[in-house]
């Protein structure tokens, strides 16, 4: 499923020196604007400072999703310069341009909302200096919550600017979880990074480790066995089921409907315990390693299949209980609505974008391996409210469970002939990586596309690692969803988005 490419035509590894000359920033901006005009998707816009041997400045990478596949284009821009902000025409670029500016100093001229994303580098510990938007007027008041919240949840600050009872604007300030992950990825040999990669976002372990290892395998030109691909897809879908269940638990709790909450909890326990029996860890840590993936022999396969067969009817039963309740409908319907137009403009992605009616799902649009052979159903909702996000998650769990059961019951599917991450290895084996190459790898995780982009220098050493969680773009969607709502709607809006703080903060 991860699609690895560095040109219009998906290639396993793109040698930058041979396939492209770096564009000028104005050429790249024009190319991106044209692509966005033609309704393509800007997956990412990121950069790195140049290193010794390069002309001083910033190398900017644009990743676009077009009907032909991924398109990756790069530009060099001299130190201390700026470029006309994309955001002024396409708001979806806002967070990428902010991040690029924060990480490299490259100024997007005319950006309407140029604020730090995560207070990294020299800005660490200056997080209290965040320049909040101000709403002025009589009866205007502000409510600030966090970074520490009431529940067991990651830290972040939410500032509600209200007029009377209504939220006019919500500003979400993140960065508290910043661990400098991208820098850490350059400190150890890439083949030993899996445990770190698995802890970038601990509820999306499979998505991150698959995206990272696919990029690495591509740079090393070491395609994996079909059984390895298939095992990874099985793990990823189990992760999707488990994490959507965690969100539904939270949503049921937030509306004080305790019976479904308790039921979703125990159903999730059954799934993550099955993952543990496959790979040794309830969150899928250890499932994927370079060139390897947890093998599933007959017994394990039957075990997981049995778990899923017992799970599905109980899941359907509790979903029916939850959705048929009038008070549940009353609480979720028409709250926190993001129209399809707004979702597109804001560049929302993944499950929340699908709940607003956007037909985006990489398992469907860029299928590979098991997903190409057995396309999952593309599910969307029409209404874009909390109810739609609840329904979307319920349907995705049911679809993934059915898909998993079909795959596991298919005797022609080989899940055993994959290199076992814990089989005796000769560890001195160090894969040479293609020099001067950049690889972009994408996996549709539970929240949406997880991206890992790796770049090597002339000697084949990792030069730059870029990681991107779908939450990065989606946090603004949550802020938008709160407009003209009440503060008391925040918990269900927040939970229905269920975005990652550590994935944003890195």
């Amino acid at each position, binding site marked *: 499923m991860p699609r690895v490419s560095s040109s219009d035509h998906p290639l396993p590894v793109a040698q930058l020196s041979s396939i492209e000359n770096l564009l000028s920033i104005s050429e790249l901006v024009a190319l991106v604007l044209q692509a966005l005009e033609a309704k393509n998707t800007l997956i990412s816009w990121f950069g790195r400072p140049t290193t010794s041997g390069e002309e001083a400045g910033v190398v900017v990478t644009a990743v676009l999703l077009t009907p032909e596949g991924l398109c990756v284009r790069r530009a060099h821009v001299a130190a201390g310069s700026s470029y006309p902000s994309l955001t002024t025409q396409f708001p979806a670029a806002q967070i990428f341009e902010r991040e690029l500016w924060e990480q490299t100093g490259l100024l997007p001229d005319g950006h309407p909302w140029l604020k730090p994303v995560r207070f990294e580098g020299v800005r660490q*510990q200056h997080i209290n200096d965040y320049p909040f938007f101000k709403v002025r007027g009589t009866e205007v008041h502000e409510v600030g919550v966090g970074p*520490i919240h009431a*529940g067991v*949840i990651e*830290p972040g600050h939410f500032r509600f600017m209200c007029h009377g009872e209504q939220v006019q604007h919500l500003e979400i300030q993140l960065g508290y979880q910043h661990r400098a992950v991208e820098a*850490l990825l350059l400190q150890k040999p890439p083949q030993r990074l899996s445990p770190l990669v698995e802890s970038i976002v601990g509820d999306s372990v499979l998505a991150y480790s698959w995206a990272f290892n696919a990029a690495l395998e591509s740079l090393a030109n070491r395609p994996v066995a079909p059984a390895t691909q298939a095992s990874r897809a099985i793990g990823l879908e189990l992760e999707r089921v488990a994490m959507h269940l965690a969100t539904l638990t939270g949503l049921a709790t937030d509306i004080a409907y305790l019976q479904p909450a308790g039921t979703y909890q125990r159903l999730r326990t059954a799934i993550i315990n099955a993952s*543990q029996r496959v790979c040794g*860890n309830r969150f899928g*840590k250890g499932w994927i390693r370079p060139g390897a993936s947890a093998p599933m022999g007959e017994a394990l396969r039957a075990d997981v299949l049995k778990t899923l067969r017992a799970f599905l009817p109980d899941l359907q039963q509790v979903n029916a209980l939850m959705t048929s309740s009038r008070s549940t409908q009353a609480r979720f319907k028409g709250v926190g609505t993001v129209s399809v137009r707004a979702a597109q403009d804001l560049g929302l992605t993944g499950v929340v974008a699908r709940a607003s009616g956007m037909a985006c799902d990489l398992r469907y649009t860029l299928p590979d391996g098991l997903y190409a052979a057995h396309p999952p159903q593309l599910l969307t909702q029409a209404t874009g409210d909390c109810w739609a996000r609840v329904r979307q998650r319920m349907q995705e769990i049911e679809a993934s469970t059915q898909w998993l059961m079909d795959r596991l019951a298919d005797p022609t599917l080989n899940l055993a002939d994959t290199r076992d991450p814990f089989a005796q290895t000769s560890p001195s084996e160090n894969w040479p990586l293609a020099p001067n190459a950049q690889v972009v790898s994408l996996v549709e995780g539970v929240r949406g596309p997880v991206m890992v982009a790796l770049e090597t220098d002339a000697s084949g050493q990792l030069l730059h690692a870029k990681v991107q969680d779908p939450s990065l773009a989606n946090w603004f969607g949550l802020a938008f969803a709160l407009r003209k709502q009440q503060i008391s709607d925040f918990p269900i809006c927040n939970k229905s988005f269920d975005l990652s703080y550590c994935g944003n903060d890195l």
Partner: protein
Amino acid sequence: MFQSLAVRKAQGTQFIRDLRAAQPGGFRGKPLISDQTCAPNCRLCQEVCPSNAIELKADHADAVAIDLGRCVLCGDCAPVCPSQKLSFNNDVKLSATTRQGLVVTAARPHIDPVVMSAELHQRFGRSLKLRSVSAGGCNGCEMEVNALSNVNFDLGRYGIDIVASPRHADGLVLTGPISRNMMAALQICWEAIPEPKLVIAVGACAISGGVFADSEAIGREFLDKYPPSLYVPGCPVHPLTFISGVMDLLGIA
């Protein structure tokens, strides 16, 4: 109504009756170090370890030491060892009351048992309210802390609960390596918890920095000032590791 009854019937009884006896199937838990001699000059396990958890003492009979305060139970050291010295069992009882007690070797295969505190038993043995602070973690430990109160583990049955306000708390459950950006908020939260109070360090991140220990974006001075009463290893911690550790610490029968 009937739907609700049907869901109730399907739910059955979910709680784990004896939390201390439970053994999670397939869990990669405690590292076991055999007394095989290491291959000459071999440092492979140390080299692959993502969190510097392995100490090697060459020419020492008890050559390999694994620090469970750093170990993320990733398992990567086992397959690279040419002497096949390392393996894991599904033991969840990994908590200790001292930092040093978390180190295992071939000659010292067990983590020091959690020492029951008479003082804590007397004060909190029937009710312990904890405030959780996530400070730079990956949300894995946070999800497992949440799982403590689910229908399966139901830690509330022993009066142990996670509470919303630090003012209502007897202690702090710390997860994450403490990012610099969270240092101030963590300190404020700690100060808001009334005395007497304790710190429980949950997960490799909180205990040692875990896989983020070498990051320039973390600052761990807090733990120098307020040493934990209990260390709960794992990445993420298994709920049963937390539960058995806390029950032993409080002397809950």
